[in-house]
């Protein structure tokens, strides 16, 4: 019998606290010169994208471990991470166009960063579909997709540096004005805490579900 460790509530509480303070920090940051208010979306959009890529890596590594060792724990981590890629990816893909509508005048552009982010999101949506609809043995198949999904992340990240594109390139974060750095890194930390909390919560659900299946198997006997 496992003890419910206090780790999960701690992460969620810390994340909640950080999110509570974030609006004050964001409000104190200076407005960006050309974009004005709409640039505020940056403080949620970019950390969500970072968490999305991080989660894709977690899923890929867990999938690789599952392919090599077949451990159910790594399979559970891969599934939880894939779900979070889809959730945070959805946030990125909705906040991005809302920002773009004001900043560029269009909802969507088929440029390198947007296209490859959408592709990454779709890869992990297909991961979840495979888990749900492929029947027995789908964990192995999905793990293969997870590995390919992880291989896709560097393409997304470097795409804006390789091609001239309307999307801001990766120098933006490095060259942030000092007053903007605190709210930005605060939000990054908040999102990372939130991600870890959600991942652990989802893992707990997966554990319970496997316990249920074991109980069903026992009842069959």
């Amino acid at each position, binding site marked *: 019998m496992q003890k419910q460790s206090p780790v999960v509530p701690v992460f969620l509480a810390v994340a909640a606290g950080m999110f509570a303070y974030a609006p004050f920090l964001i*409000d104190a940051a200076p407005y960006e010169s050309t974009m004005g208010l*709409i640039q505020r979306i940056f403080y949620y959009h970019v950390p969500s994208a970072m968490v999305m890529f991080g989660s894709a890596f977690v899923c890929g590594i867990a999938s690789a471990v599952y392919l090599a060792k077949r451990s159910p724990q790594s399979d559970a981590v891969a599934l939880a991470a894939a779900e979070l890629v889809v959730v945070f990816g*959805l946030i990125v893909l909705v*906040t991005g166009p809302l920002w773009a*509508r004001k900043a560029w005048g269009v909802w969507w552009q088929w440029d390198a960063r947007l296209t490859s982010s959408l592709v990454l999101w779709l890869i992990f949506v297909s991961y979840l579909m495979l888990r749900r609809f492929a029947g027995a043995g789908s964990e192995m198949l999905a793990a293969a997709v997870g590995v390919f999904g992880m291989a896709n992340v560097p393409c997304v990240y470097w795409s804006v540096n390789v091609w001239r594109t309307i999307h801001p390139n990766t120098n933006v974060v490095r060259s942030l004005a000092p007053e903007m750095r605190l709210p930005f890194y605060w939000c990054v930390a908040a999102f990372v805490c*939130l991600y870890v909390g959600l991942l652990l919560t989802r893992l707990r659900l997966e554990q319970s579900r496997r316990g249920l299946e074991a*109980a069903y198997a026992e009842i069959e006997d």
Partner: protein
Amino acid sequence: MNVSRFQIAACRWTTILAVLVAVVFVAAAAAQTQPPLAAIDGFVPMSSAVPREVLPATPLVFYAYSFVWLALIGYVFSIWRRMARVEQDLADVQRRLKDGQGGR
């Protein structure tokens, strides 16, 4: 695997707490984005020389932040719902196991 009722309740309360705290922040974030409204949509002239379509930014920012919160709360809620179903099924199965053992 035996999951005590205390642990199930603790998990449920954690998720309820997280959802409530998150709801408070939607309100806080919404309140925070209100004051700049007067500054942007007031009588401050456009500094850019190029005339372009003037879109009020505040609704877009509000929708963006709201969506983030809705998505996260929605996900937490979905985990909570699935957890409740699993716990219910688990309690069910354990009851049947016990009955089966008692009946033998």
